[in-house]
C-alpha cells in the first residue's frame, strides 16, 4: 500500500512539474539602475509616474511563445526618475499631474508599445526587446513644450542550458538602460525642448 502511495506521489509531482512548464515564463526585471554622471541643468523638474506606469506588466496574449508576462513597470519608472534626477537640479515626483505646477518643467511618460523576438523566431541566437515611449513635456504654466517619442532596445545572448526568464530579464535590463541613454542624448536635441532651453538661456547639452 505504501509503495502504491509513493508511486502516485511521484507521478503527481512529475505531472505538476510538466504543467508548471506549460504555464509560460514570467519575467521579473531588476529595478536597480544608476544615476547618470552629468552636468545638471539649473532648473527644477517634475515627473508624473501614475501607478499604471510604475506597476505595468506586459501580458503575452499568445500561448505558443512560452512567455507569460514581463514585469516592466518598476524598472521603467526607476530609470526615468534616475535620469531626470541626474539631468536637473531638483526632481519632484508625482503619482498624478498636480493642479498647479511648481517646477520649471514637467515630464509625463507613457509606454506606447512593447515587443520582443525570441531566438527561435529569428535567425540569430539573441533575444531582442523593443519598447516605444512618448514623454509629454510641459512648462511651469502647463503649456506643452513637446510630446517627444523615444525608443528602447535591448538584446541578450542565448547561452548553453540558459533559462529563458533570465535571458529575457537581461534583455529588458539592457533596453531599460538604453531608454535612459536615449533620453539623455535625445532630449537636448528635441526641437520643442531645445527651444524651451533657449528661452531659459541654458546650455544645450547637460
Amino acid at each position, binding site marked *: 500500500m505504501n509503495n502504491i502511495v509513493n508511486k502516485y506521489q511521484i507521478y503527481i509531482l512529475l505531472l505538476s512539474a510538466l504543467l508548471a512548464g506549460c504555464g509560460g515564463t514570467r519575467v521579473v526585471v531588476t529595478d536597480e539602475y544608476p544615476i547618470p554622471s552629468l552636468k545638471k541643468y539649473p532648473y527644477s523638474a517634475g515627473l508624473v509616474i501614475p501607478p499604471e506606469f510604475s506597476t505595468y506588466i506586459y501580458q503575452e496574449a499568445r500561448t505558443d511563445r512560452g512567455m507569460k508576462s514581463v514585469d516592466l513597470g518598476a524598472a521603467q519608472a526607476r530609470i526615468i526618475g534616475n535620469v531626470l534626477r541626474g539631468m536637473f537640479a531638483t526632481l519632484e515626483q508625482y503619482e498624478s499631474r498636480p493642479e498647479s505646477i511648481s517646477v520649471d518643467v514637467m515630464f509625463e511618460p507613457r509606454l506606447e508599445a512593447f515587443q520582443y523576438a525570441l531566438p527561435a523566431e529569428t535567425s540569430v541566437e539573441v533575444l531582442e526587446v523593443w519598447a516605444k515611449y512618448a514623454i509629454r513635456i510641459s512648462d511651469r504654466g502647463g503649456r506643452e513644450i513637446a510630446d517627444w517619442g523615444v525608443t528602447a532596445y535591448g538584446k541578450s545572448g542565448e547561452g548553453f542550458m540558459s533559462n529563458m526568464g533570465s535571458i529575457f530579464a537581461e534583455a529588458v535590463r539592457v533596453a531599460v538602460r538604453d531608454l535612459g*541613454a536615449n533620453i539623455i542624448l535625445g532630449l537636448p536635441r528635441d526641437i520643442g525642448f531645445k527651444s524651451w532651453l533657449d528661452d531659459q538661456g541654458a546650455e544645450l547639452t547637460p
Partner: protein
Amino acid sequence: MNQIIKNLIVSAGGVVLVACSTVRVEENRMETVVLDKTDAIAVLGRRHGSSYNTEYDLVSCVASNIGHDGLQVISETELSDELYPWLEPRIAPIRIEAMLYMMNRPTVRERLNAMNLRYVVWVDGSTQTTDQSGSMSCAIAPGFAGCYGMGIWTNESGYEVSIWDIEQNREIDQISVSAEGTSYLPAIVVPIPIIARVQSSACNGIAMQVKSYFKGETGETPN
C-alpha cells in the same frame, strides 16, 4: 535489476564528463607596458553587433581570472554604472578617439580619476553552436522512466580583444582567441553529458594572454 538501474542513475547524476576543446591565441603587441601597482584595469564587452552579444559571463570570467593574479580589476558592471550612460551599447566608444571625447567631460574624468582606471580591455565576440546532430527520446511510464539516443553538438568561440591605454590615448595590444569543442550526450536509460567547455577555455585563453601582457612576459600560447 532495479538496483543496477538505481546505481546507474546515482552515478550518472554525480558525474558530468568534460570533453576536449582546442584554443588558439594570436597576439599583436604594439607596445609593452610596465604596470604601476595603482593602475586599474577594466574588462568590458562589446555589444553593438546585431547578430551576437559578447556574453556577460565571459567578460566577468576574464575579469575575475585576471583579478586572481593580483592585478587591480574594475568589473564591467561597476564601470558601466559609474560612467552611465557613456558605456551603453548604443554610445560606447568604438575607437580610442571617441573614448577621448567621452573623457573630456569633467564628470567622466572625475570618476575615472577616482577609480585610477588606466587600461581598458575590450572583448568582442561570442560562442555559438555551429553544428548539431543526433536524436534522443525519453519516456515516462508506470515503473519506468528513461531516455535513449545520442546528441552531438559543436561550439565555436571567436573573440577579438583590444587593450587601450586611456592615459596615453592609444591602443597598445590586440589579441585574437578562437576555441572549438564538440559535446556529446549519449543516453541509455540515463543521459550522460560529456560537455566541451568551449567558452570557459576561451576565457582562460584571453585572461592568460592579458595577464602575460601586463606582466611584460613574452607571448605564450596556452595549451
